[in-house]
């Protein structure tokens, strides 16, 4: 079985729109009228087709909220989010795989719900599993996999949706450093191979710099875009590369400043 590494067929119109997702003055508040808590304030941001953007921010600044809005799991209080390529794929912080299915069947279910004909599902699922290097784990149950393997299956399932936009909510936060390193390399490889646009949420500065072409820093309470950096370091990078460290130090300084500001208020 030859593994095709070309871009999966996509039905949307990202290329003509010029962006994979556009946030246009998006705000979100929770709570009832009178006791509202503003979580996201006037976020405007474009992610270009094929771009890898990380959203960085302290815990509770609204990163997951922003992804949920993008995924359509919740509605914005103001502003609009346009995703021209259709429903994005979302990878949760927990793997969110279905324990009643095997690894392979989890991927197949995503294909089925996308409308892939029955005969093509099995080979396509095997292709996606080998893309995350789990070709031998098709029949494994979720509980038989390690944490890193589960996240890779979850990634394969997200890729099975063939969305033009992949949303990732701290997908590697629960993994040990060694496994996370390896998955960074895998993600970079897969992103290069598939050309998918990625919006990746994390509160780990080095991770953000390691992966992204652009790092967006969110301030807290309410979440606003505080600053953004282009990362012009050539891939494949390593998390311990000097250039990655240097930029991480700069971003960390800025992040601390943001956090300190809250102490003074």
């Amino acid at each position: 079985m030859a593994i095709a590494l070309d871009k999966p067929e996509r039905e949307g119109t990202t290329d003509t729109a010029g962006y994979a997702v556009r946030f246009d003055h998006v705000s979100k508040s929770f709570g009832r009228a009178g006791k509202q808590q503003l979580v996201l304030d006037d976020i405007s941001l474009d992610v270009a087709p094929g771009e890898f953007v990380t959203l960085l921010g302290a815990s509770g600044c609204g990163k997951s909220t922003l992804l949920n809005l993008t995924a359509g799991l919740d509605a914005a209080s103001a502003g609009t989010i346009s995703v021209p390529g259709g429903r994005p794929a979302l990878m949760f912080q927990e793997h969110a795989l279905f324990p009643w299915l095997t690894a392979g069947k989890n991927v197949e279910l995503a294909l089925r719900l996308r409308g892939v004909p029955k005969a093509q599902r099995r080979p396509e699922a095997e292709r996606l599993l080998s893309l995350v290097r789990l070709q031998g784990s098709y029949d494994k149950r979720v509980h038989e996999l390690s944490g890193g393997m589960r996240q890779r299956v979850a990634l394969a399932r997200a890729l099975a949706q063939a969305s033009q936009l992949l949303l990732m909510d701290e997908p590697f936060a629960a993994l040990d450093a060694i496994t996370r390193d390896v998955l960074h390399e895998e993600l970079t490889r897969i992103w290069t191979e598939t050309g998918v646009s990625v919006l990746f949420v994390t509160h780990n500065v080095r991770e953000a710099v390691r992966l992204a072409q652009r790092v967006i820093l969110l301030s807290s309470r309410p979440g606003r875009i505080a600053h953004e950096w282009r990362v012009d370091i050539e891939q494949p990078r390593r998390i311990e590369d000097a250039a990655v460290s240097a930029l991480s130090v700069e971003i960390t300084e800025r992040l601390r400043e943001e956090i300190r500001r809250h102490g003074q208020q």
Partner: protein
Amino acid sequence: MGSSETTTKDEQPDLAGLEAGLDALESGGGDERPNAGRVLLTKVLPPLVAVALVLLVWQLAYWADLQKDYLLPSPGDVWAEYEEMWREGTLFEFIWTSVSRGILGFMIAVAIGTPLGLLVARVKLVRAAIGPILTGLQSLPSIAWVPAAIIWFGLNNSAIYAVVLLGAVPSIANGIVAGVDQIPPLYLRAGRMLGARGLTSVRHVLLPAALPGYLAGLKQGWAFSWRSLMAAELIVQSPSLGTGLGQLMETYRTLQNMAGVLGTIILILIVGVAIDLLFFSPLERRVLRSRGLLSRVS
């Protein structure tokens, strides 16, 4: 499909090996099957010993003449009743009459209780309206329905099935409600992200996710079916209905045959336990084990 085929132009060759090593280290040795001797010793032997002890105490009580023999027959007397039924060829007929009724009633109850439970679990208005009623019905002894069922349907099978359904449907419906309520919201959101809506979502996410709770409800539903059936059979007597275990017991009572009554009680127990052991328990264990919710370790 070797992994070498996945390697591409600009990739570090050691990554695949590193990953394979991590996977091997992290995923451990897998489940080990317990051997047959151990299962025999830890699972089969204890209940057998317990039954033997009960029989022994019973026999001792008989020998000690605690009661007159017609009030307290010996295990041997009960055995003689079985032998007689066996010789007349009626033993399995009695059992089958009841079991077939029980199974049919249970299946109808599943067919009604499942959609009902799903409605209660998923539609707020329905839950508010009949949720409490279902819970209330579950605590109502099903024998309370027998007089009403006889007045409505007469002394026939319909009356018996009505009692079984009124006993089993609420517990099956409540089982699926509990199963749905226990689903982690993450699964539902993941299903939505994959594009599962409406009935597709029910079929591919909701039902499988609710299965463990649903099975527990089915198990309880069977127990309720069987109990209700015995209550109904004891009272709903008619020559045209055939003789189930309940009717058999009532016949023995009118004959003042205590050995027969005791023997029938034991048969009712055995059938209830056997269906659970042969059907529901293995099913439940299989489902739980396949999801990693049950460890094989003793």
